[in-house]
């Protein structure tokens, strides 16, 4: 079995790495985390350098990449400033990917060129105050009015909601739990749409918001995928989940790899100045064990991505990947806080930022508990 990365994939990794090195050196990453503002400047540069085309079909002028290309990009970008992965999601995932997986041709033609050149940002509005892990419990409703629909309700933890142009909004359109959900492309300029950012522990600058819809009118054409997709929202979302889990896993891997790098540098320095021989064996072993887990996570992640590419059934594998990579990331950053010592507790040390960033990867995109539900169910339990 040959699963080497293609030359183009290697080139994308190099290109992303070079971009991050040049545009997001550690001091800029620290500054952006401190300010917590949406990184419009870096997003514009990513657009200028053609990154927004990596997962757009060639017929629309994109590079035609798939899940592996996305993972490479997200892994590399998460190594320095994880929140850039989320803001990139406002183009690559909630724009490019959703439109190509679930949009109709008219919607693709209308938005993809603008997404690629950085004109549009999309956000994905599903979670509600009472519909977190239990996502099908949403109550934000869209009611038929004058040949269109009127949306009322609220959403929470919607990343990029106050800066996005389009909010892909999932609404209740019938009482059936799974067959009563419709997804709309909502223009955020429309009256009645408001979004207020939430202050968070980490991933600062993601513009994660509470969103309110008050009599927001949309037309039939705004149904994601067109009129035929009325009440098909849940099914549409299911098609996105494998990709979402793998991309989030790639984010966790990027964070883990950087933290390991920090630890190796730090321990090497301490070893040099230490008067006690052999003092660092236990620490070194702790780091080695984490490195083994991260490598296992990487193998699992790209194996699952390969299955996605081959269109094989792999819900169990992607769920295992997300569970394993997110929990490994938590363990790695926690070890990081322990090994970095007092220095690790100061804001000058990047490990504390990764420690603040990582927990959400075990929550968003299906908590670790939900992943275990899926895995055990698929095992017949």
């Amino acid at each position, binding site marked *: 079995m040959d699963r080497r990365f293609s030359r183009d994939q290697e080139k994308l990794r190099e290109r992303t790495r070079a971009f991050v090195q040049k545009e997001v050196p550690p001091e800029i990453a620290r500054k952006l985390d401190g300010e917590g503002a949406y990184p419009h400047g870096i997003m514009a540069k990513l657009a200028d350098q053609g990154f927004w085309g990596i997962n757009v079909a060639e017929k629309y002028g994109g590079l035609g990449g798939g899940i592996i290309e996305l993972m490479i990009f997200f892994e590399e970008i998460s190594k320095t400033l994880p929140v850039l992965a989320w803001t990139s999601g406002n183009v690559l995932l909630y724009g490019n990917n959703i439109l190509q997986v679930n949009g109709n041709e008219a919607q693709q033609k209308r938005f993809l060129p603008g997404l690629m050149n950085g004109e549009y940002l999309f956000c994905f509005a599903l*979670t509600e105050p*009472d519909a*977190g*892990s*239990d996502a099908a*419990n949403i109550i934000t409703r869209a009611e038929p009015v004058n040949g269109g629909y009127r949306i009322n309700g609220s959403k*929470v*933890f919607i990343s990029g909601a106050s800066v996005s142009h389009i909010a892909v909004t999932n609404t209740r359109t019938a009482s059936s739990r799974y067959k009563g959900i419709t997804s709309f492309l909502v223009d955020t300029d429309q009256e009645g749409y408001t979004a207020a950012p*939430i*202050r*968070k*522990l*980490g991933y600062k600058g993601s513009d994660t918001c509470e969103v309110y819809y008050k009599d927001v009118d949309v037309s039939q054409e705004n149904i994601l995928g067109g009129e035929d997709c009325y009440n098909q929202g849940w099914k549409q979302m299911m098609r996105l989940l494998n990709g979402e889990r793998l991309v989030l896993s790639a984010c966790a891997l990027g964070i883990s790899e950087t933290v390991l790098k920090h630890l190796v540098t730090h321990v090497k320095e301490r070893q040099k*100045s*230490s*008067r*006690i021989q052999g*003092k660092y064996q*236990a*620490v070194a072993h702790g780091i080695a064990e984490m490195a083994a887990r991260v490598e296992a996570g990487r193998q699992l992640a790209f194996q699952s991505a390969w299955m996605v590419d081959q269109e094989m059934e792999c819900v169990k594998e992607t769920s295992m990947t997300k569970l394993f990579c997110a929990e490994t990331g*938590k363990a790695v950053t*926690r070890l990081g*806080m*322990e*090994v*970095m*010592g*007092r*220095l*690790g*507790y*100061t*804001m*000058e040390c990047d490990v*504390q930022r990764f*420690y*603040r960033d990582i*927990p*959400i990867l*075990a*929550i*968003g995109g299906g*908590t*670790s*508990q939900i992943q*275990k539900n899926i895995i055990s169910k698929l095992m017949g339990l």
Partner: protein
Amino acid sequence: MMDFELNSEEKLIQKAIRDFVTKELPQGVVRELDGMGQFPEKQLTALSKLGFLGLTIPEAFDGEGVNIVEACIVAEELAMGYPALAACYANAVFGSGAVLATLGSEDQKSRFLPGIARGELWVALALLEADDDAGGIETRAAPEGAGVVISGEKPLVALGDVADAFLVLARTGKTDDLALYCVDGNAPGITRNRVDTLGMHGENLVNVVFDRVWVESQAILGGMDRQMTAPEQLEMIQNYQLLGIGAQALGMARGAFGLALSHAKNRVQFDQVIGKFTAIQEKLTDLLCDIAAAKFLVYNAALVASTGKKFTREVAMAKIKAARIAVQASMDGLQVFGGYGYSMEYDIQRYVRDAAGTLSAGISNESLGLKIAKSMGL
């Protein structure tokens, strides 16, 4: 046979401090103080008026009489609601009160202890430097006139911003001998630079530079006719410091656990409170067991300390375990809260930030592990 049941006096203290937390530290107040990152002076003054700051200070020096267990109870209960306040409190009762009551000369006791008990005088511990042990000390104390001149830098000194005095560990002369000095915070040559930290805002960390700071010979801890060597004194100081950190970590774990438990009882998903899911129950059960274990270790160390015996190994075990469970409870607590836990509007994120500091506070868990190994003859 050890008895971990609180006696009636300890129960009274526990009730009094719980009442204080309920009354003086409502959520909004703690959130605001954490946001501002200022030394919680008002709350500490209130604690001193209730006598809590005197729990490790003899009555002869305006204290309440020494009661290590009660001081632990107070630190633990405070940390449940506001860990940084507990850290400031522990600094007073353990880091300086117990230390000076045990190791100080009569002069030093009269000079410092009454002020500490009243919450008016703060002594910061400026002990370690690059390493977790005394071997890494580069700060020097060189004889000059009727005293010594201290030069060096102490990184990340807790309460270094407000300290009226520092207890400084230095090398003496050209030998490898160590000595501890009580240094007036206003002495010429001291500069303080505050460092931003992930959490424990209020118990602020400061890099303190001592540039040719002169102190008189009698400022040596214990005075000229002291009974203990500096390494022995250092061990005692660190043991008290670790006991305070252990009690704080235990309180933080309980605080985070309490938030998670109440969320699990209230949050409904899939038509039931999430606490009905056995996966959540298991998480909370594990935490409950580990917190109980940490509690036994912390109070065992406190009881041994109360007898006047050496409690180096006991307190090392207590601190390692309590710090770990504090981190675990905060992270598991956040997981139980889900997305809400990640929002600054909820308090569990503060426990995540505060608890992470306990891993390296005082002496890191890693170095304590080495100490315990040594005590086992390894």
